[in-house]
């Protein structure tokens, strides 16, 4: 459990990282207790396996040419699953683009994600996740939306937190700075989660910032911050759960640096061998979040690895069926281009749409 005393012990300025288990899944904090039930823990692991399987399959759909560019999540899932466990229905999730497991937990359907990455805006409707924003491509810009949402929650007197995600590269953008500052000055309940996966495409962290760690950037805004092992599900969950309470109680923002590693490519169009070493990849493979959570569960006798194969086989079937759903989605229509720009379609757009429709009718007639 993470509390105010712990926060005080893990000062970013001292470059201390909050960790609950070592790389073999052994708990390293004396008298540590989790806030999760045994069922929760097992479910978290299953969710992680599900995310990982869906992610792998997304990559292979992409390779088969059935989906366009896709950003893999491999290695960062502990952050996502812990987020999923902490973020409540009334909370807002403001994604960047690499938090698959968190989206699923929020209620996003896998077929929607596939539809989105196949190239259809309808995949961003998130029919069962009311309080989740769409993927945000322009780096760091979404954090300001998170702050605005948090202002609205406070303004309306709702007991809801906002979770905004960004990468290590994203901390360089001006919008990161403005978001942290606005949140602090306005005293609003937002948790900023920096997934520090060591790279922004090919650019390593040391060319992104000279700051010892990213959590200490919170100091510039007087925002409470902590650096946590993002590959340690137990630590991540502790910190996120604490952060949610903290921002709601204090009506103040909180910043989390989740240190992790993108084990896969930046996107399916990227080749990481160009810019990083095998040794580095192997080093981080040993810190894999799935393996560590598994070891922990096995040590607690909550899990038997033998069950995994069947479980994953089931997942695969389900994931394929979700992909089928996305593939069977109705064709993109001309009205889909024009129909959502404004609540009511302005005459000018109707004119442009009709012109095009006339051309299509003519073409059709000619054929």
């Amino acid at each position: 459990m993470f509390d105010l005393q712990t926060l005080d012990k893990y000062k970013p300025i001292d470059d201390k990282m909050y960790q609950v288990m070592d790389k073999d899944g052994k708990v390293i904090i004396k008298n540590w207790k989790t806030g999760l039930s045994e069922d929760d823990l097992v479910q978290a692991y299953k969710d992680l396996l599900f995310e990982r399987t869906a992610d792998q399959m997304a990559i292979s759909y992409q390779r088969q040419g059935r989906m366009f560019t896709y950003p893999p999540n491999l290695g960062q899932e502990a952050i996502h699953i812990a987020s999923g466990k902490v973020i409540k229905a009334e909370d807002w999730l403001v994604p960047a683009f690499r938090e698959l497991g968190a989206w699923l937990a929020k209620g996003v359907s896998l077929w929607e994600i596939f539809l989105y990455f196949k190239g259809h805006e309808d995949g961003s409707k998130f029919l069962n996740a009311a309080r989740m924003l769409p993927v945000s491509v322009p780096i760091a810009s979404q954090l300001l939306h998170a702050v605005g949402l948090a202002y609205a929650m406070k303004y309306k007197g709702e007991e809801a937190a906002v979770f905004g995600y960004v990468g290590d590269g994203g901390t360089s953008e001006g919008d990161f700075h403005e978001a942290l500052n606005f949140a602090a000055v306005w005293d609003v309940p937002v948790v900023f989660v920096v997934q520090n996966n060591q790279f922004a495409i090919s650019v390593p962290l040391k060319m992104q910032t000279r700051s010892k760690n990213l959590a200490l950037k919170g100091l510039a805004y007087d925002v409470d911050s902590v650096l946590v092992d993002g590959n340690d599900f137990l630590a991540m969950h502790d910190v996120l759960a604490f952060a949610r309470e903290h921002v709601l109680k204090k009506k103040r923002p909180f910043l989390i640096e989740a240190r992790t590693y993108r084990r896969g490519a930046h996107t399916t169009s990227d080749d990481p061998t160009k810019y990083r070493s095998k040794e580095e990849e192997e080093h981080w493979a040993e810190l894999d979040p799935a393996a560590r959570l598994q070891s922990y569960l096995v040590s607690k006798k909550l899990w038997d690895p033998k069950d995994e194969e069947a479980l994953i086989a089931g997942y695969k079937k389900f994931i394929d069926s979700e992909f089928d759903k996305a593939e069977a989605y109705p064709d993109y229509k001309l009205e889909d281009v024009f129909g959502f720009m404004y609540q009511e379609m302005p005459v000018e757009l109707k004119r442009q749409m009709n012109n095009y429709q006339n051309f299509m009718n003519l073409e059709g007639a000619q054929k």
Partner: protein
Amino acid sequence: MKVMNMVQAITDGLDLMLTEDKNVVVYGEDVGVEGGVFRVTEGLQVKHGAGRVFDSPLAESGIAGTALGMAVAGMRPVIEMQFDGFVFPAMNQIISHVARFRNRTRGKFSVPMVIRIPYGGGINALEHHSESPEAYFGHTPGLKVVIPSTPYDAKGLLIAAIEDPDPVIYLEPKRIYRAIKQEVPEEKYSIEIGKAKVVNYGEHITVVAYGAMIREVQKAIVLAKEKGISVELIDLRTIWPIDRDTIRESLRKTGRLLVVTEAPQSYGPAAEIISIATEEAFLSLEAPPTRLTGFDTVIPLPLGEKYYMLTPPRIFHEIEKLVRY
């Protein structure tokens, strides 16, 4: 009815909407205690509280981006960019998000927010305080862009903008902030976004303009009248979407078009209006549709501004040339 200048009419519109709709908030740099550098928000913080009318940190991207978040959550933020030249740090938020959030989410989230921007030259200001950036917004799909030219229109368009379910850029011609006084209803009314207004009926030529240029064209019309030239003046009021009908009807009658806008010429608003004219009324055109615009230069500092600003004699000169064509 009450006699108001444009600043007062805008204040009045803000006050009214703040009173009527708890979701409306007003913020930006110096809009709280100070009441805005042009005093447009004067008195509103005292009346409606610092949770609803407040200062933000000095960061325009932050102002626009947070407003989007509020709007998505159902609020109706009305934000201020202190001057035309200071909206540019917010361009990414405006172009990439504000204008597109509804489309991106297929209508799940709409963005009912208003961005107020005092704009335009002629006030002897420092650099970056006299720009006419409207074309950047007109070219950005997903926005509506309105520009009043009178106190009456200012209040009516503001209320329409705040009530619009989509984001509206509301440009305030600061040069005429206090230049025109007019009877303005104290109650609520709104002016339809997307509808132009024929400000002056005439036979020989159509002039299309908006904002502070309306008053300059009106002065030129007096000069024209002396020479027996009868001018029809259209005040666009909304520059996206443009009211094609009003332009077409007028051109069918006059056959001649002069567009007067202060923004730089190339890729500017006048080019759009001329293209619409050729699309809608090519066969009616008896002379080349003509633009009188700012130069493709930075608007000069005060001592050089006289060359850049469009004066009644220059407008008249073009009117006469076209009518004699």
